[in-house]
């Protein structure tokens, strides 16, 4: 089977995935999107692949490439629609709400004045997030009106038009950690906690990952969350609310896992590669069938 992996830099995760795919006998090509262009009228070069795995760090590149490659009729993992839903916190929240999956309360405003009113009505603290962003960047805990006014003014004045969508999330008084469930092919495979003295618990911000038993509740929430955004592969971030229990916070479509293999004892890249081959095998079989019918 022939598989392409999109990237814009080969980190440890991408290397692990390439190795796992090759170990399983796949013919894999790493394609650097910084050096790639697409002919919208001719996708022949891409149709040689049974599956395209997106591992680009750049959301813009990921979405651009997968949207076009899917038009060529080639299956992407994750699909572009899933990347769209996961990468935009507002769209993720809408899907979680639609699927009745427990999640923190979210308020949305498109002007700083309306955002301030919503925050005041809810009460402090709240968490202000950009709708699109990762690794905890520009995520701020707002403790009082002074901070709210300053942050909202800075975002609306200095930020891009996208920063003009104010995503205000209730603050969950979590116990110094958040939880992450890895879901591959609809099945929860591992869980970790991420601990930090800082209120932000992204490993990109220095939080430490620890293995966590995959309880039925974690597995169920993770699997339902991944399903509601149509992900083949996803990392579901959860918060432990003292009053309401586990709440799904965010869904990551192109997860990092280098620190979660030894801590969980689960060969995450191997399981992702196995799932990729299952999808590629189904695609390849379907194509052969279609070819035979022509």
């Amino acid at each position: 089977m022939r598989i392409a992996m999109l990237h814009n830099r080969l980190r440890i995760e991408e290397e692990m995935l390439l190795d796992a795919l090759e170990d399983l006998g796949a013919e894999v090509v790493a394609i650097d999107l910084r050096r790639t262009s697409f002919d919208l009228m001719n996708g022949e070069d891409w149709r040689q692949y049974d599956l395209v795995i997106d591992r680009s760090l750049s959301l813009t590149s990921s979405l651009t490439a997968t949207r076009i490659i899917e038009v060529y009729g080639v299956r992407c993992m994750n699909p572009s629609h899933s990347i769209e839903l996961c990468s935009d916190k507002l769209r993720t929240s809408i899907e979680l709400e639609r699927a009745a999956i427990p999640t923190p309360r979210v308020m949305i405003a498109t002007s700083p004045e309306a955002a301030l009113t919503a925050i005041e009505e809810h009460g402090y603290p709240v968490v202000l997030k950009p709708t699109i962003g990762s690794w905890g960047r520009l995520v701020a805990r707002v403790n009082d009106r002074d901070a709210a006014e300053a942050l909202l003014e800075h975002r609306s004045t200095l930020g891009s038009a996208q920063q003009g969508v104010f995503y205000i999330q209730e603050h969950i008084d979590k116990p110094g950690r958040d939880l992450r469930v890895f879901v591959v092919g609809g099945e929860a495979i591992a869980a970790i906690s991420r601990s930090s003295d800082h209120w932000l618990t992204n490993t990109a911000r220095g939080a430490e990952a620890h293995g966590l038993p995959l309880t039925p509740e974690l597995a169920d929430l993770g699997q339902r969350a991944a399903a509601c955004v149509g992900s083949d592969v996803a990392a579901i971030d959860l918060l432990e609310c003292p009053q309401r229990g586990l709440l799904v916070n965010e869904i990551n479509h192109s997860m990092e896992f280098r620190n979660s293999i030894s801590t969980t004892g689960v060969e995450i890249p191997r399981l992702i590669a196995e799932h990729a081959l299952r999808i590629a095998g189904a695609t390849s079989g379907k194509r052969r069938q279609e070819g035979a019918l022509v």
Partner: protein
Amino acid sequence: MNSATTTTTETQTAACIECGGELQFRRSPRLGQVVMCSGCGVELEVVSTSPLALELAPEVEEDWGE
């Protein structure tokens, strides 16, 4: 771009273009691979495998993430 590279049967080495420290590749480097210099902490990207050449890896951009 760095050209000071050495190849043995088991490892390939290259000099960090920032601090000059030695970087060792225990297996064949891949094009696009990002490595961190243990001497100065800078991230370097493999921009050519034959000959082995490194450049400073691009800075994190606004839309990068998980």
